[in-house]
């Protein structure tokens, strides 16, 4: 069955956030989610990337 990978709960992130994380080479599991219910947001992913190499990521920010 498809799923969230069982009790080893994977990071809660929407498809666009997952795509951005792949794009930026960020490992979602290591990103603390600040969205509702601990969901990882695009901003979280961008921030994680900034943390890695100090460069601001070209991530879209919700208005």
């Amino acid at each position: 069955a498809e799923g969230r990978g069982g009790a080893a709960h994977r990071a809660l992130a929407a498809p666009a956030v997952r795509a951005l994380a792949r794009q930026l080479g960020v490992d979602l599991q290591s990103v603390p989610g600040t969205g509702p219910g601990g969901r990882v947001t695009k901003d979280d992913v961008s921030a994680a990337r900034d943390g890695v190499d100090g460069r601001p990521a070209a991530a879209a920010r919700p208005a």
Partner: protein
Amino acid sequence: MDTKTFDAVVIGAGPGGYVAAIRLAQLGKKTALVEKESLGGVCLNWGCIPSKALIAVANLVDEMRGAADRGIIADQPRIDVEKLRAFKNEVVKKLVGGVGTLEKGNGVEVLRGAGRFVAPNAIEVKGEKGEWRVEAPAFIVATGARTIQIPGFEFDGKDVWSAREAVDLPEIPKHLVVIGGGIIGLELGSTYARLGSKVTVVEALPQLLTGIDPEAVRVVQKNLRQREVAVHVSAKAKGLDRGKDGLAVRIEVDGKEQAIPCDKVLVAVGMRPDASGLGLDAVGVKIGPKGFVEVNERYQTSVPSIYCVGDLSGPPLLAHKASKEGEIAAEAIAGKKSVRDWVAMPAAIFTEPEVASVGLSEEEARKAGYEPVVGKFGFGALGRAIAIDHTDGFVKVVGDKGSGLLLGATIVGPEASDLIAEAALALEMGAYLEDVALTVHAHPTLPEALMEACKAALGEAIHALNR
């Protein structure tokens, strides 16, 4: 033999291949699409689409039969087989033509013929209009699956139909025996039943629609019973007798044999992957024990230049799974970082009523380490369902008790195939039961049942009593 060169070549123009080709072209790749029969593959030519055209008509016939209860005076409807077939063919023609237009519009070159690998970077295509050697740095194989035959019931297109013949509607048999009570068997079996056949379903396993929530299956089974479809489960099809009065299917149930007289047999026991004649072995592509080509998360096979998507790359054998994989493989070839990462792969079954599911069942959730909490809401208590007079069925959601995370949904009832989309999006978004429960749902509509089921899981149903 002429040689043609492309950036990427797709073999097989079903929903996996034709979508992959469009996506490759969109991403700037010079692309060829090789197809030996008809654009659209199984899905458009004798699968998803034509079966649903027939099913929609069967649904309408059914509604017409019950129309008197709602104050509509009309004769009992009859079927004009030729005209129905013509309608179905028209639907197929429109969509197959559409695929051709889309490929052309995106600049994909369609090569008519059967493709076969002669090297990891080259295939030969043999068609009626020509033969080419086609070279490319990347290939996507999307040649699908074929229907399984069983001994004693070899397809002859006359007495013994495969899904392909059944979907073509050669006639409406007086008595049709359907071997296989899975999705295709029940979709087509109940269609013929509504079009006027007496139908008997023979299933080897103890349950129809194996893999689907038994409570949902019971709703479908009740409907079959109401329309006097005979169902034999745990029944083995032993053989076919051809007498001068017609056919008889011999089955064995509980060690006892019986014969079911009939005039047609539909064998719908499943599909298996079809890699034959592709020369994959020869170029070193690894094929798994069940015949599915082995792929990584980008749908790349053991030979890096060769990708594989759709029915041939593994279950579930569904058109939208094929298309999604086609997109991912195309994007991977074009250098994007796409991988298989979906959370939700919905499945829809077009029986009466429809069944659809996505995510984890209660049992799967438990196995995955969650403490499942279940919420259910019956269409019998939903305004919209009562107003449209389709009240059989329910929405069932599974959540995680501790976190409140939504884990899965099963829907049986009116428009279940459409309603599952909201649940799939919820899963992809990482929604909690509360997210769906708190979202305003227009009244009176069917998706209110999903909202109520989520509320029920939280002990807060409005239109049902919370125990």
